[in-house]
Each structure stands twice: as structure tokens, then as C-alpha cells.
């Protein structure tokens, strides 16, 4: 997961891109023709310390390598944000980013 968190006119702009296939379960594998099982991120959260700053729930229509951008206030340069995502098969990733 790549995250850019930039402090600008008193708010924090967060942009992130998650490396994930986001398989819908409706596509066939090109070489052996059987259906690729569904594997897509269902939830992604961003916390600033204890405070929940953003919560996204995804269905199957979110693009491959999903991109998200949101803005919030109440944090400053140097603070850390912790982001997590989990998909329908239970795979998950946690990462932390420092606001620049």
C-alpha cells in the first residue's frame, strides 16, 4: 500500500494506492479458462492515533489496485497515520505514514 499524506492549508490530504487484484469472481483466467475466485478488499480504515479518520467499504466494482483520496483536519506535520485494509479472504495489510 502506497500512501501520500500532505499537510496543506490546515488540512491533511491523503492519497493512497493499494496493490490488490480486486478479482470480482466473474472473470475467467485467460490461460486455463476457469473462473478466478473473488478476492477484493472489503474494508479500509485510516486512524489518526485513536481517532477514526476514514472508513471505506468496497464492493466488487472498485478498480484493480484501488485508489482513494480524502482530506481531514485535526492533525499536523509529523503525526503518524495508521492504515489497514482487509479483503474477503481475510488477507490484510497494515501500514503507517508520517504527515509531511
Amino acid at each position, binding site marked *: 500500500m*502506497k500512501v*501520500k499524506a500532505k499537510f496543506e492549508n490546515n488540512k491533511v490530504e491523503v*492519497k*493512497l*494506492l493499494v*496493490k490488490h487484484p480486486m478479482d470480482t469472481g466473474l472473470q475467467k483466467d485467460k490461460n486455463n479458462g476457469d473462473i478466478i475466485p473473488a478476492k477484493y478488499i472489503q474494508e479500509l480504515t485510516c486512524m489518526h492515533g485513536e481517532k477514526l479518520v476514514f472508513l471505506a467499504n468496497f464492493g466488487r466494482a472498485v478498480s*484493480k*489496485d484501488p*485508489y482513494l*483520496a480524502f482530506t481531514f483536519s485535526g492533525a499536523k506535520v509529523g503525526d503518524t497515520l495508521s492504515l489497514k485494509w482487509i479483503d474477503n479472504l481475510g488477507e490484510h495489510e497494515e501500514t503507517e505514514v508520517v504527515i509531511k
Partner: protein
Amino acid sequence: MKGRIYLTLAIASCLTVATSTFADPVSDNATIRSYFAEKFPDIALEDLVDGAYALDKDSKEQWLQIEEFPPYEEAIDKGKKLFTTPFANGKDYASCFDNGGIGIKQNFPYFDTDKNQVVTLELAVNDCRVQNGEVPLSYGKGAIAYITSYMASTSRGQPINVTIPNDAAKAAYEDGKQFFYSRRGQLNMACATCHMASAGNRLRADILSPALGQVSHFPAYRFKWEDVGTIQRRYEGCNTQIRAKPFKLQSVEYRNLEYFHTYMSNGLPINGPGTRK
């Protein structure tokens, strides 16, 4: 004395007549620039490096949103890693290129006066590998596209600067030029048919990009490929679409075409790797 002056004047004039009929690359570029300036009067020529996005607000808007976090970033990271990993003999790509390969993409392709052939960046990468005892990479996509994507990213903003050093180079240029303007394939179209005469028109939902500035964003990440690909991979695809049998990647036909096609955009800034349809 006067006789001799008239004599030299006569010779000089028939010399100029001879060269003007055989248009030279410099005047070619001038003609092409005025052609597109007339076709798109309200668009600065430099902006044509954004291709169809310079001509359509809706698709430009989408492109800018995608550029917020572009999909080719991964290719650049992979390319940088490959570029900096030393070969088995300890040397690396940087040793093969001027300035360590950083910020030089705008000078490619160049004409190698010893080997008497056009050398594209991808060919130079493979030559470097072979000189250092490595297996050459396959062309078009994959590792070679990641490496040249990284090298292109270090050249962003540099004006394209392809040179034609001698007559052999000029012949390669003319060969590429003839390819560009020849109608081919079962649909009987030339590159110029779509990218000059019909540049800016729509074919269903696709806008035909102008030839001027068309090379600056390569290697390109195309949504259709879901990965980056070199310009010759695009030549292959385009030829197939007009039902002409494509040439082999890095064949003399495609290298000369790339030579002419890039020379045409001399002076325009490199903005690769870019995202396209």
C-alpha cells in the same frame, strides 16, 4: 572575372534546386509544425505532447485525475531497481550510458555511424547487457519497458533532440518517412491517414492523436495493456489493427520509423512514461 561569377551563380542555383525538391528533415519539421498549427490554431504545439488529452476536455479531466496517483509509478520503481542492480560481472547499466543513463532519453534514438544503424534506447539497453555477458531482454514489454520507463522518467521536461549526422542517417530517416506515409494493410491506411489528415477526429470513442508530440510519453502505460509498453509495441498493435502484418520489434523498419517519428517532434519536451487509453 564576371564570367566566372555567373558560372558559380548558375551552379549554385541548380544545386539549391536539386536539394529543395529532395526535402530535407529540417524543412520537413517546419512544414509539419505549420500543418498542425493551422489544424489546431488554439493549441500550443508543446501541448501536443499530451496527445488526445490536449484536444478533449473530458478525457483530459480523467487523465489528470489518474495522474494524481498514476499506474506507471510501479513500473518506474521496478525499472529503477533493475537499472541499479549490477550484472554478474559487477558492472551496471549506468556504465554503458553517458551521464550514467540519467536524463538522456531525449537523445534517443540516435544514428550509430560505426554500425550504420539507428539505435533505440531499448536496443542500447540490450547491447549493454550483451557487452556485460548478460542475456538480452525481450522487447516491447516487461523488464525492458520498466528500465526504459525509469530512464524516461529521469528525462522529463528535456526537449527531444534527435540528430541526423550523415547521409546514411538521412537515408534511415527517409526510409522511416516513407513507412509513415505509405498506405498498408487490408484497410489500406498509412500512419499519416489517421495521425495527420484525421488527427483530432473521433473513431467511435477514440480520439486520433496528432503525430507531432506522439512519441514524448513513451514507454506508455496503457489501460488496455494494464502495463507499460514501448513505442514499437504500439507500432505492432497499430499495424495489426489496419490488418498489416507487423514487423519484428527492433527490426530495421520499426527502428527507422521510430527515428523519423521522434525526429519530427524535436524540441518538444519528454513527458514519459505517460498514461493512455
